């Protein structure tokens, strides 16, 4: 087999030392080498967004990156959203609003929305919708995803003075 490169991926605060071929995608590495299968692969083409993770604060499509490009960077995946048993407001909002059916697109949407709302808690609704329209869902018709994200956005902003 071809040559491999030793890299360290920091996923949800934990270091994973793995050896990968230069051509191995970050999505495959996160899933197969690091065991975080919550990150899904729907197209391997950068279109569907199922593979969205947060890298150094930015939502990224892990199918479009090579694992070696993420060496030493801080990656967040869906497995890191909840604090122990306490679900993240977005996770709860998706459940409350029936924002998922098959759930395959859900981790991608959760990570996308998390990154967007963390970066810009007061994001205008139109911009929020724009941001979310970069991911695909085939089950829900999006309506309940929007509802869920809007609800979580309010909660994440916290009480106003």
């Amino acid at each position, binding site marked *: *087999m071809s040559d491999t490169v030793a890299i360290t991926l920091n996923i949800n605060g934990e270091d994973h030392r793995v050896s990968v*071929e230069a*051509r*191995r995608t970050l999505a495959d590495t996160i*899933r197969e080498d690091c065991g*975080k*299968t*919550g*990150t*899904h*692969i*729907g*197209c*391997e*083409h950068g*279109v*569907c967004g*199922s593979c969205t993770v947060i890298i150094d604060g930015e939502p990224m499509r892990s199918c479009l990156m090579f694992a070696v490009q993420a060496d030493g960077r801080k990656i967040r*995946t*869906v*497995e890191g*959203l*909840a604090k122990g048993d306490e*679900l993240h407001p977005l*996770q709860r909002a*998706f*459940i*409350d609003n*029936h924002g*998922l*059916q*098959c*759930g*395959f*697109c*859900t*981790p991608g949407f*959760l990570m996308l929305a998390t990154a967007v709302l963390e970066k810009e808690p007061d994001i205008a609704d139109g911009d929020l*919708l*724009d941001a*979310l*329209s*970069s991911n*695909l*869902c*085939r*089950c*829900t*018709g*999006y*309506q*309940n*995803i*929007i509802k869920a994200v809007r609800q979580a956005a309010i909660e994440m902003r916290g009480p106003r003075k």
Partner: protein
Amino acid sequence: MTDHFAGAKTYPVPPTTEERTILGKRAVRLEDPPLVTGRGRYAGDINFPRQLHMRMVRSSLAHGVIKSIDVAEALKLPGVVAIWTNDDINELGPVDFRADRGAEILKPYRQPVLAKGRVRYVGDPIAAVFAEDPYVAEDAAELVEVEIDELPVVVDSWATPGEFEPGRSTEGALLKHSFGDIEAAFKKAHVIVELDLFTGRHSGVPMETRGALGYYDSAKDILELHGAAKVPHRNRETLVKMLGRAPKGLHVHESHVGGGFGIRGELYPEDVLVLVAAMRLGRPIKWIEDRREHLMCANQGREQRHKVRIAADKDGKLLGIDDEIFHDQGAYVRTHGANVANRTMCMMTGGYDIPAYRAVCHYRLTNKTPCATYRAPGRYESTFVRERLMDALADKMGIDRIELRRRNLIGKSQMPYLIEFEEQGVEELLYDSGDYELLLDKGLKAFRWDERKVEIAARRAKGEAVGLGIAIFVEESGRGPSDGAKMSVDATGDMELITGGASLGQGFETSMAQIAAEALGVDYQRITVVHGQTDRIAQGIGAHAARATVLTGGAVNETALKLRAKALEFGSELLQLPVGDLDIVNGVIVKKGAPAGGPSLSLADLAKKLTPGAKLLNGRDPHLAVEAWFNTDHTVFPYGIHFAQVRVDKQTGQTVCESFLIAYDIGRAVNPMLVEGQLVGGAVQGLGGALFEEFAYSETGEPLAVTMVDYLLPTLGEVPKIDVLITEDAPSPMNPLGIKGAGEGGINGVGGAIASAIDDAIGKPGAVVQLPVTPQRMKALLA
């Protein structure tokens, strides 16, 4: 007319949601916690030690004779374990289909597991590579050299049929559905309208591609298929036959499924291959499809041409529909046989009272991806056709579109309404219940049809192209004959409910738990629902044709009632109270109407007492566990109406759906939140098919949509707010809960309603004859 129900078991009107505890409520889903935390287990997440990865070598030509396959170079690649062609598996028969009318004559058109001498579509599997690593398997697949002599291709189902193989036409069958005197109907017609209509090629395109894992447990001699979906029990039956194994030696296991929509979970060549390879190579085999393969190889559907005419009398009363259909089956006959063509024909007349009908269908093979069922199979198509006819007729007669429909709807007093076809073996349709006109009135009001007409007139005056559309349809669900379930309570009070159903993301676990909880009197969250595991229950219908809720739901209801009876029988003895005085509330047997602290016995405590050998049993079976069945001979028929408002941008040719309403009578909803979810999700898929999605092919049969950049799924940006009006005016008398299915009511009428709205918007009645209405097609219409 009630004698139509003669011999059938009918049920009284069930309680309303208000009278229920948990059934009919918007309960949050049991499925969600693992799925929002990344703990789901989809096919791709399953791994077995020492597994090999399979990669298919596929045809790059649409039709040809295989001259040679050279695997030598590929085999040299380190990590490659084996490469198979048809020669390696030639004892395997083709992938079989389920029994269906017209099936026998279609047998020669079935798909071999690996191409046998010929390739018939781009993507046709020619060889399978097995390697230690998926990247290596892919490299090796590219090194396999295939030489093919090209043959002429058939791309259009309406073109002159070609040769499937020497002496066999690409017209697989000529099918027919009819009733009444069609010639007489057209002879006495006051008005006749003729249309030539096309529905585009679409597919479910679930977010998760297909996947399959074969595992052979040599200690037990059991072959396991993982990653299955939709119809695990039926697939097992087919596999047992194909592989010549005893049923006990083959099991199918469903995991989480990333969307199905009718196309995922059918038996495909790759499913068979992973099993055969797992046995022969002595190692687990994993196959995960990539998106390109998915778009070339997974079942597609919908592509039909209808040369159709409709006859009416001077008042606009329908006299007959006469349709000649060209059904594009693609390269092979897959697991559904002629089902989609038959569903198209039998649902064509929809909710209208029509005295005469004839449909003749040319069921034809082409050199494109094979077809089978995609959500609302045959109904999306037939509703488009029927509702196009109604609009065209209304226009020609100068009658309002709504009024014409109203005049022809089957009346409430005509229920149950029987449609019998003349052809032998074609199942009759017995519409069980419905008040179509009531739904029309409610829908028009909810959509504000009249107000919108005024608003639109004002916008048109300013130069905008805006219009309204409508499509009325009848759905079908819950075809029999029967389904069973098992339920037990353990010593902690937790419950297990084992079903033969399947879950494709529609909330099956939650729905079944709600039905069981209502019947038994327990907390639905304490019920674990098992589905899609053939080693847990001998029979199962899976999840197709919106059957799950109706049929499996019926079985679950029977089972929970039986468990309740058993609990109350023992409860009565232990509490020394007559059964009639007892109730089960939140898992505790109590005296009806007694204040808290009265005599009580929890189901957990009762389960503890019913251990084998317990005196209390007195000859009766131990454990708080039962099994029961639900039998029905009849399908139930939910119905709905779609309303759409669209705006057409005359410059770009783009159609924007501004608002959409689904009015749908569900009989009784198990969980309105889930029903709405199904309806809205379905409608958005339908919108895709009406405006964006299309598997186009070149003249040489080359697929032009093999990535998600070419096959355009609707994104959040294209989707309007979709409103849902669920009514419960016509509970089904065919099952005790009155329920009808919801899986397909969201998509059924979208093509019809959008077409209707576009005509209205551009002021050209009858303009839309082809779906999807892409910007290019729209520009042609406007030219």
